[in-house]
């Protein structure tokens, strides 16, 4: 006789345990993943709203809806919210939590209580970050990078903001620690490393970056806090310090952090492409190993953010060269995905559309990254809108579309219902169109010399800015359509079967939604994750 936990879907309350507390104190990885999902989507909405306001300010030269100080606070906030509260926890903490144990046939993560503690840390960090806007000397105006010496001197509420970042970093570290331990210790007996789904491989590589790079950020922002409090002067030239060392420390974390953002999205794409292609993934080992290679090589290149900072020419040369090296594993993935598509029987469902959007936009972002990684050209476009465009192509076009793809791919698994396919398709066209309209002109005005982080600009850039702002409206229309298409399907009877896509990884062997308790005993049979022979659809 199975217990209620083995039959009741995890979204529904267990007998005698219901209400908010059954969520916020839950140690179930699926519920924790959902908590993260709701939080990051809320933060995404905040970040988008700020971004739209910034675009509105930039529709015409001069002051349109806000002045310089307000704009400074806006781009700081946009960066902090998007980077630390949305993108970094995005795929790993939300979808990683829900799916990692399911995909390896484990009952839960290794440390379930630590897992909910991480979420509480995330929530605390988020609350503090938002509080820093309304308390102290006004919202921080340093940009999300908190560069010294300005961050040490500005009277705005940087101290509280860096405390928030410290706590968020701790949350990220503990999630990474949990995932690495889980993957090492709790795989089903037959789940060898060679049978791990590629999403798990990507989470594994990401978790190592979270674990080893984030502490450096922690100590760096702690130093900013200490400097603001005590004025020791470790980064202050007047007191013998070197402000460039702050940049080194900051980017030692924040460059690898870009891979915390993008690698899980690559894992999502690696799951979706073979499933909608009815063909085994091409180059399984190459994709798995390239995740690890990105994680390692990604920690060797941080100073390419500092070519114009005044560091030595030797360092410029070395870091420029290494930056080209890190392009290799990313390209390996792209080629393998394309090779997987070749001669497959393609079902152009929304998850695949978003995955293809990822490949296209990420490729644009990645290739323009080479322009920036090459020191000679970087000098010309550094701190221009070219950088803004490049970054958004990689992170929004990459991670954002990866997240959207994951949301559609696993929506039926999580909710037991199918999203509205027409709206999903329509939203994809709006998103792709709006996205390119919003960000592509930035490449052009960046090349023309438009500097980033100004609320005002010369009239020569106006056309580009106007197209870009109009693009932001199309993009928002796409987002509204997409979330409408998903949320209208949150109610109603659960009709989806176990495996609507006919995918081969373990989570599709479970009911949709999965019950509270899953894989109490590890599965007897562990299939090869991308072999579709004999896998039956169960819509």
């Amino acid at each position, binding site marked *: 006789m199975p217990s209620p936990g083995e039959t009741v879907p995890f979204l529904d309350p267990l007998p005698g345990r219901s209400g908010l507390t059954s969520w916020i104190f839950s140690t179930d990885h699926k519920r924790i993943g959902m908590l993260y999902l709701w939080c990051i989507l809320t933060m995404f909405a905040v970040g988008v709203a700020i971004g739209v306001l910034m675009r509105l300010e930039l529709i015409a030269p001069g002051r349109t809806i806000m002045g310089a100080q307000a704009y400074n606070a806006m781009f700081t906030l946009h960066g902090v919210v998007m980077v630390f509260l949305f993108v970094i926890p995005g795929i790993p903490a939300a979808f990683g939590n829900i799916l990692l144990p399911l995909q390896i046939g484990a009952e839960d993560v290794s440390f379930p209580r630590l897992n909910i503690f991480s979420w509480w840390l995330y929530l605390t960090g988020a609350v503090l970050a938002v509080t820093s806007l309304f308390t102290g000397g006004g919202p921080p105006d340093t940009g999300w990078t908190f560069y010294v010496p300005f961050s040490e001197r500005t009277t705005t509420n940087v101290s509280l903001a860096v405390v928030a970042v410290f706590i968020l970093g701790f949350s990220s570290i503990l999630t990474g620690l949990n995932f690495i331990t889980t993957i*090492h210790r709790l795989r089903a007996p037959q789940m060898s490393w060679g049978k791990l789904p590629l999403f798990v491989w990507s989470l594994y590589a990401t978790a190592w970056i979270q674990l*080893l790079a984030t502490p*450096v950020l922690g100590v760096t922002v702690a130093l900013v806090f200490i400097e603001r409090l005590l004025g020791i002067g470790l980064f202050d030239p007047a007191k013998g310090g*070197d402000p*460039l*060392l702050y940049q*080194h420390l900051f980017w*030692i974390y924040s460059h690898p952090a870009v891979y915390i953002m993008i690698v899980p999205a690559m894992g999502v794409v690696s799951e979706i492409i073979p499933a909608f292609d009815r063909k085994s993934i091409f180059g399984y080992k190459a994709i798995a190993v390239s995740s690890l290679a990105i994680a390692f090589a990604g*920690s*060797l290149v941080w*100073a390419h953010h*500092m070519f114009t900072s005044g*560091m*030595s*020419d*030797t*360092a410029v040369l*070395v*870091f420029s060269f290494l930056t080209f090296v890190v392009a290799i594993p990313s390209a390996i993935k792209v080629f393998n995905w394309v090779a997987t598509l070749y001669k497959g029987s393609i079902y152009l469902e929304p998850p695949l559309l978003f995955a293809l959007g990822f490949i296209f936009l990420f490729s644009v972002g990645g290739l323009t990254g080479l322009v920036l990684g090459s020191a000679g050209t970087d000098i010309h476009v550094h701190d221009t809108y070219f950088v803004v465009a490049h970054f958004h192509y990689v992170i929004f076009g990459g991670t954002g579309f990866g997240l959207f793809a994951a949301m559609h791919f696993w929506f039926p698994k999580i909710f037991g219902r199918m999203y509205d396919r027409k709206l999903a398709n329509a939203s994809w066209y709006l998103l792709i169109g709006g996205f390119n309209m919003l960000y592509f002109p930035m490449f052009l005005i960046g090349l023309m010399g438009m500097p980033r982080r100004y609320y005002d600009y010369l009239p020569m850039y106006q056309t580009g800015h106007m197209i870009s702002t109009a693009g932001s409206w199309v993009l928002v229309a796409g987002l509204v359509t997409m979330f409408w298409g998903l949320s209208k399907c949150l109610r109603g009877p659960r009709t989806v079967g176990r495996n609507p896509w006919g995918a081969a990884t373990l989570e599709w062997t479970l009911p949709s939604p999965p019950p509270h308790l899953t894989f109490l005993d590890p599965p007897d049979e562990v299939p090869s994750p991308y072999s579709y022979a004999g896998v039956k659809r169960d819509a």
Partner: protein
Amino acid sequence: MTHKHIIPFGLLAKIWLALMVLTGVTVGVASFDFGFLNVLVAMSVASAKALLVVLFFMHLKYENRVLGAFVILVFVILAIFIGFTFFDVAWRPEAGA
């Protein structure tokens, strides 16, 4: 519990003694002036001490090799972080002046 590996008191005492001797050595050497070599010697002795602590006090010698490899990886990464920063600071024009 199957993974129980009890380290005898005698071995721990020997390690402690070795750590004490190494502390004495490093303090003793520091009273001579070898210039930059002092830093090198001090760091070598410290590394030897750290190795003893990690291998015996922390039982790493008796853990599986994967963990050992990870410990090495961590120190390699840290060495890269510190070493690569010197590509900048060691070649700064004003640093050499």
